[in-house]
């Protein structure tokens, strides 16, 4: 169980994390989703005690991280796979962690095996590793102490599609055995594939949280038309709420709070030709996420 309660972090006038509250439950993979700079990493750093919170409390397996007598045995942490001495070999990095935790030396080879780093690769210095190899090494280090909770910051970064699939299966299996898994990502689709629960953060605030099913369930209708003005007028006249949607990747789409049949009839009455009409499954989350990223995005899809 990982619990973040009313955590706030300010740097002078900048509020990096603003009253964030959420939990990650045992047996489930919780995805922590947000655009770059939204406060994900800061929140995770506060969780593991590397950054002091301005206010609020964060606990892992029921205790503050700093109060864990031997944290490596309780919580596996991977914050930045590249944050390793470039001159050490992969095996040496695992050996150092193994010695600090006091687990059997055989765990090192077991973990190397688990993350598919060959003995040759493990003997190479980390400066020669690809980002994907560093991520695998970081996962190996996090799992070394057989912890009951995992905190991983962007673990899928640098992994190829096969690597992401491997990570999904690994984390799925780990959570199924009762562990709490919290991982962050700035990519909605990446986290959709892996997570059971989602926590969405934007500009330091938690903007949505719930099970993936809840967040992705049908939220109205998605409609594309060649005549937005006419359809918009008809919807307004009928008292139906709607908003533009970027979920289709086109700028002629609306998300409407009504079922497709009603939207079709209104469009017909208004003489607006439709390009697409369907239940807006997941479009709400997608739109929310696009809205959050719009501020930081340099090249928006909708120009």
């Amino acid at each position, binding site marked *: 169980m990982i619990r973040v309660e009313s955590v706030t972090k300010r740097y002078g006038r900048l509020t990096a994390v603003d009253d964030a509250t959420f939990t990650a439950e045992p*047996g489930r993979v919780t995805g922590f989703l947000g655009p770059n700079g939204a406060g994900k990493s800061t929140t995770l750093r506060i969780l593991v005690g590397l950054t002091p919170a301005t206010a609020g409390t964060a606990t892992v397996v029921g205790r503050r991280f*700093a109060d864990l007598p031997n944290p490596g045995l309780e919580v596996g942490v991977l914050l*930045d796979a590249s944050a390793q001495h470039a*001159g050490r070999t992969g095996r040496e990095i695992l050996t150092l962690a193994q*010695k600090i935790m*006091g687990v059997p030396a055989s765990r090192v080879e077991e973990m190397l095996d688990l993350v598919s780093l060959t003995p040759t690769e493990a003997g190479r210095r980390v400066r020669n590793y690809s980002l994907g190899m560093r991520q695998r090494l970081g996962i190996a280090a996090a799992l070394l102490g*057989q912890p009951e909770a995992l905190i991983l910051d962007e673990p899928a970064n640098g992994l190829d599609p096969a690597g992401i699939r491997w990570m999904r299966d690994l984390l799925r299996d780990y959570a199924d*055995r009762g562990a709490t898994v919290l991982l962050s990502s700035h990519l909605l689709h990446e986290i959709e594939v892996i997570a059971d629960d989602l926590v969405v953060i934007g500009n330091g605030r938690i903007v949505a949280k719930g099970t993936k099913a809840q967040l992705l369930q049908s939220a109205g209708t998605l409609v594309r038309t060649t005549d937005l003005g006419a359809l918009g007028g008809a919807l307004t006249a009928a008292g139906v709420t709607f908003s533009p949607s970027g979920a289709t990747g086109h700028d002629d789409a609306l998300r409407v709070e009504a079922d497709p049949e009603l939207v079709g009839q209104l469009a017909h009455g208004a003489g607006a030709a439709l390009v697409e009409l369907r239940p807006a499954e997941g479009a709400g989350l997608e739109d929310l996420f696009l809205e959050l990223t719009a501020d930081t995005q340099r090249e928006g899809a909708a120009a």
Partner: protein
Amino acid sequence: MTAIPLKAIPLEPIPVETGPVQTVAPRSTRTAARGPIPLSRIVSVELRKSFDTRSGFWLLASIAIASLLATAGVVIWAARDQLTYSTFTLAIGFPMAVILPVIAILSVTAEWTQRSGLTTFTLVPHRGRVVFAKAIVAISIAIASMLVAFAIGALGNLVAAALAGRDAVWDQGVATLAAIVLANVLIVLLGFMLGVLIRNSTAAIVAYFVYAFVAPPLLELLAANQAWFHDLHAWVDPNVTQQLLFHGPLVGQQWVQLAVTTAAWLVAPLLLGLWTLQRSEVK
């Protein structure tokens, strides 16, 4: 086209439902047996970290290499009939004053410069313990290095005497050797302090060289030319009494001067450095 309000449909945060309770946490049975990490374990891991990279390994190796070169240089170039043991210990002392502090500096700054502190301080979330372990390692390496250096110097002294066809002159006793070890420990701690305070490899090494090799001659010059500073010198510049230690134990007031300069230039900045280190973010 009609202007459409962007936030027509606010997405309400959906409350998290408590998921099904899973009883089986991996290895929860072992939790009870987990004690805190003993300091000895942190020390041994920190010691290992000081030679498990190529740069670390060669820095340590360079201590023995430099001692050998200095000893060989003395045997080859010095007037052989005047050689005594102190010639060797002094010759070896110089490379030690360069290498040992650098080892101490890097042991601290690498956690920030190489960013390995992210792992180190998550596995041991008490930075004070880690830094204390690093200090123990730095001092142990300094003492061990000096013992190796003394042995190599003694060997040089025997060889030189044999080549000159006379008995070796042992003009330094245990007290003097202990004073030299103390001088080196102080130098190593000074490097360590700069690492803790600055937390950047290059800047800390430069700061050490300024302290150890640039400032002393300038202060020497000032003391020679300005009467008011002449008497003050030993009370202000820690190098004065530290240099005397390389020739043997201090006497009387010199110990007080060493204590005063050490408190001002080592203890005070070290405390400040430890305070900021506890609060700094490891990025």
